[in-house]
């Protein structure tokens, strides 16, 4: 076990990107100190550790800051080698990274549009999101998790869709993910959320829906303050 002072995580309770890092730390059994940030009034520490993006999560290990949640996941896997979250084989690693960036860039973009926009633009975003969900559904054919029998890097990367997509749908009044259309994906969501490390580390649903409802009212298509 690592001494808690050596590992610090700056986060925000509603952020999926922060939870992603927490899931990885807990899977590895790494002790850490968590610092909750008020994103409307960022601490001087956060701004010092992440001056470029000024976002959460930021992992600080032995006073070195690491930012961008997927970069943090790779760092965690390379630094604490027990219970690896990335596969060993280079081709499998490339596939894992491929799906992670697909979800982080493409699915997040369409989800954001479906969330913030209205009318035709909203409909188009939902349509695009469903094409993406189909691709994810097909990738899960014959597999319990994206990473195989146990959750790994890809599951942690796609994991925000198991909870926050539903939250976004409820808060913004749209539906993209249907169990009947994406049966493998739907099954994966249940299995992922049943994992102890995950189910014990999710924000309260009602509070998160409220938060996102308020967030939607704040403005149009602005960037979410977390990566």
């Amino acid at each position: 076990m690592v001494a808690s002072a050596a590992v610090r995580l700056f986060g925000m309770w509603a952020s999926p990107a922060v939870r992603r890092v927490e899931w990885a730390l807990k899977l590895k059994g790494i002790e850490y100190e968590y610092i909750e940030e008020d994103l409307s009034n960022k601490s001087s520490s956060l701004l010092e550790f992440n001056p470029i993006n000024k976002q959460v999560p930021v992992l600080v290990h032995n006073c070195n800051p690491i930012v961008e949640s997927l970069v943090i996941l790779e760092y965690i896997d390379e630094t604490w080698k027990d219970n690896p979250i990335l596969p060993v084989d280079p081709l499998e690693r490339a596939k894992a990274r491929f799906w992670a960036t697909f979800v982080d860039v493409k699915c997040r973009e369409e989800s954001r549009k479906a969330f913030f926009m209205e009318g035709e633009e909203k409909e188009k975003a939902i349509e695009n999101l469903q094409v993406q969900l189909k691709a994810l559904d097909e990738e899960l054919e014959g597999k319990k998790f994206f990473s195989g029998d146990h959750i790994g890097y890809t599951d942690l990367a796609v994991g925000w869709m198991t909870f926050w997509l539903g939250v976004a749908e409820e808060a913004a009044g749209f539906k993209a993910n249907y169990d009947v259309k994406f049966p493998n994906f739907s099954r994966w969501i249940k299995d992922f959320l049943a994992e102890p490390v995950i189910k014990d580390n999710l924000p309260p649903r009602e509070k998160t829906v409220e938060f996102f409802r308020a967030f939607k009212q704040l403005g149009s298509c602005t960037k979410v303050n977390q990566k």
Partner: protein
Amino acid sequence: MAAEKDEIKLIGGWASPFVMRPRVALNMKGVVYEMTQETVGKKSDLLLKSNPVYKKIPVLIHNGKPICESMIIVEYIDETWSDGASILPPDPYDRSIARFWTAYVDDKIPDLIRKLRLLVKGSAEAEVEAEKLNAALQLLEEAFEKCSKGKGFFGGDDIGYLDIAFGSQLGWIKAVEKIVEIKFLDKEKIPGLVAWSERFCAHEAVKEVMPEADRLVEFTKMLLSGSFAK
């Protein structure tokens, strides 16, 4: 370790900075490969089959298995041909810095280039986008100071992951300099990066695959005139 009778194919295009990335990586590893040139406006069946999700170049096909997304391919190359010099630095913290700045480059630079290459020199819009590119380059200048630790490349003594990610954009940066007639690689403003860019472009693994700025300017004209088949 790669097998003895390896079949390595790269689906690409000479003008794409993203295709250039795996080419530099393969060159650094001394790996022989075959590149197929995609026709602009008409995607090949091989591309559509190998990258059904994005339908974009580059795609590396290694013994029949496709790998997509340029920096993912670079990392795959580094991990597969692991003898000799490594493209990613050995230390996890240095790796995270290289990955962070690569994400920054990809977030800012290609979009700015795509906008700038369509703009008219002297226009207000060109000034606005040029300011953004200059600001990004200024940050990358500071990153270079920190990452290079006094040596010639972001990766230290030799080209590394971030050199490849950012250096591959240099052809297009020089092309938009000509299109909007604004100097971005200005040694008064970003001396470290200007010197680095010269070293990068002269590198053995880079010089044959870096597209010339004039040729990219012509390419842009053809894109705008709709010369490419649909």
